[in-house]
């Protein structure tokens, strides 16, 4: 993270959102909204006095609500940048005009309640989508697991926050209900994944491995503990992955092949009703804590960005690559590339490799001062074009715009609107040629005349 923030060629814009994208490969115009932080990050030294004194506490998003944070806050100690922002929704001063303690005590006078959102426009040659993933909202779908009513049923990410030394529990694994150390922990895989009925059909790819890691952590950190993992398949296709999983099994993790049908509370225990399909028998496990490996889904808001930049998505909302094998980091839109889980669920090693792959594609593009475009694109015969612009509507790449031309009719100059194809954006799909009623749009390399000649010859 520090590497990314300190690189002289990287301009880091946190607390910012892309709000508009136009243009085409090599020539995009983007607008970025800088949300008000209410702290001048030039003046701020990151001393942290303000976060100590702030009187308002709210649940920490970063800790998934397990812990609390102040209203002027830094997400976590190693955060980059390590300077605070004020959460306007909860800040007393911004809501009621009273308080302002942070402003009073800030030694450098960096707190600025007058900050407004700013819009910055930039020209770029390439865009990389790296919007990542969110976790499937299992509480809405899994009634048989209690709809989130049982405090001791948590997700893998919650578990990470507990076992992370910088988290609220300081690395101690506890039961959220009473803070006690759980002795029996049940892990359930594929919650939402590979579940057409309730969630997603796909495999989320990382869960097998992180669940093995969690089981290892339970056995490692909690004395006398036991870990049970309900699974359908163990998928470990990565270097040193299967060895890791085997080691976890040898450490004593009990893998049970079957899905869990129901969890219910009995006393302060959770009863997990599952099957051991290898035995062919239903089984129950008493648990202190249940950890669900929930499916990865596209991150919230990724659909909005997709629409903005014209990036197609698949049926699950992940960004669609140009070709799954041959062009996995490119999209059908020129100059737009994909990295990480926004394209589909993946783990860290895969994400890093894919990100480097996308970077090479970007570099290959940016290394040129100018680029050649495929000549097999649409050509508009301006004389025939009626200016109806139906073609503009059907173009999936937003490559067609209107253009005003001047013609001389009976010696008089007359202005008229015609369609205009952007050679950078046009991908040569030919949709416009079908929509064009006047026959003005033609696709070079696949002209009407050419295709008809082919048809005629073939049918003979």
């Amino acid at each position, binding site marked *: 993270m520090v590497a990314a923030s300190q690189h002289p060629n990287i301009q880091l814009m946190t607390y910012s959102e892309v709000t508009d994208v136009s243009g085409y490969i090599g020539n995009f115009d983007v607008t970025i909204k800088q949300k008000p932080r209410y702290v001048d990050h030039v003046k701020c030294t990151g001393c942290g006095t303000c976060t100590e004194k702030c009187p308002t506490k709210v649940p920490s998003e970063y800790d998934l609500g397990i812990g609390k944070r102040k209203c002027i806050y830094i997400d976590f100690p190693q955060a980059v940048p390590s300077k605070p922002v004020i959460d306007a929704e909860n800040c007393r001063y911004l809501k009621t005009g009273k308080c302002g303690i942070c402003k009073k005590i800030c030694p450098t006078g960096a707190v600025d309640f007058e900050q407004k959102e700013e819009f910055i426009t930039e020209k770029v040659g390439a865009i990389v989508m790296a919007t990542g993933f969110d976790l499937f909202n299992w509480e809405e779908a899994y009634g048989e697991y209690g709809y989130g009513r049982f405090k001791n049923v948590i997700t893998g990410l919650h578990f990470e926050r507990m076992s992370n030394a910088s988290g609220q529990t300081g690395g101690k694994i506890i039961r959220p209900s009473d803070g006690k150390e759980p002795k029996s922990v049940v892990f359930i895989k594929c919650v939402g994944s590979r579940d057409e009925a309730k969630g997603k059909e796909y495999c989320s790819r990382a869960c097998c491995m992180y669940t093995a890691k969690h089981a290892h952590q339970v056995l490692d950190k909690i004395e006398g503990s036991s870990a049970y993992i309900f699974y359908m398949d163990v998928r470990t296709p990565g270097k040193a992955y299967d060895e890791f999983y085997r080691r976890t099994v040898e450490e004593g993790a009990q893998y049970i092949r079957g899905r869990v049908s129901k969890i219910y509370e009995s006393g302060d225990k959770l009863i997990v009703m599952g099957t051991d399909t290898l035995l062919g028998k239903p089984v129950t496990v008493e648990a202190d804590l249940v950890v669900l490996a929930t499916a990865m889904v596209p991150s919230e808001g990724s659909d909005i960005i997709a629409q903005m930049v014209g990036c197609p998505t698949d049926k699950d909302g992940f960004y669609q690559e140009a070709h799954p094998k041959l062009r996995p980091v490119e999209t059908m839109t020129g100059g737009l590339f994909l990295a990480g889980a926004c394209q589909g669920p993946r783990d860290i090693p895969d994400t890093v490799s894919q990100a480097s792959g996308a970077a090479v594609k970007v570099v290959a593009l940016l290394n040129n001062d100018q680029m050649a475009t495929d000549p097999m694109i649409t050509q508009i015969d301006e004389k025939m074009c009626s200016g109806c612009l139906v073609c503009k509507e059907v173009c999936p790449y937003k490559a067609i715009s209107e253009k005003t031309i001047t013609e001389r009719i009976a010696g008089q100059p007359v202005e008229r609107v015609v369609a205009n194809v952007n050679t950078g954006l046009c991908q040569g799909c030919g949709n416009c040629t*079908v929509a064009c009623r006047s026959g003005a749009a033609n696709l070079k390399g696949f002209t009407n005349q050419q295709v008809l000649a082919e048809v*005629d010859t073939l049918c003979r």
Partner: protein
Amino acid sequence: MSIVNETKEFNPIIVGFNCNWCSYAGADLAGVSRMKYPANVRVIRVPCSGRVNPSFVLRAFQKGADGVLVSG
């Protein structure tokens, strides 16, 4: 233009308009996998099934095609 000989077994002519990225590749794959299908289909490569103008299809029928397959 030859008139179909009704006494011989009728062998229809099917014209396929295949998208370069999808079904044309699919047809290639069928070849690579050495699958077998009747030899009466003739494929025209188009950049996208959206390129197929209805008039192409009508023209094919006019010129004697017995079937047309548009696939994307």
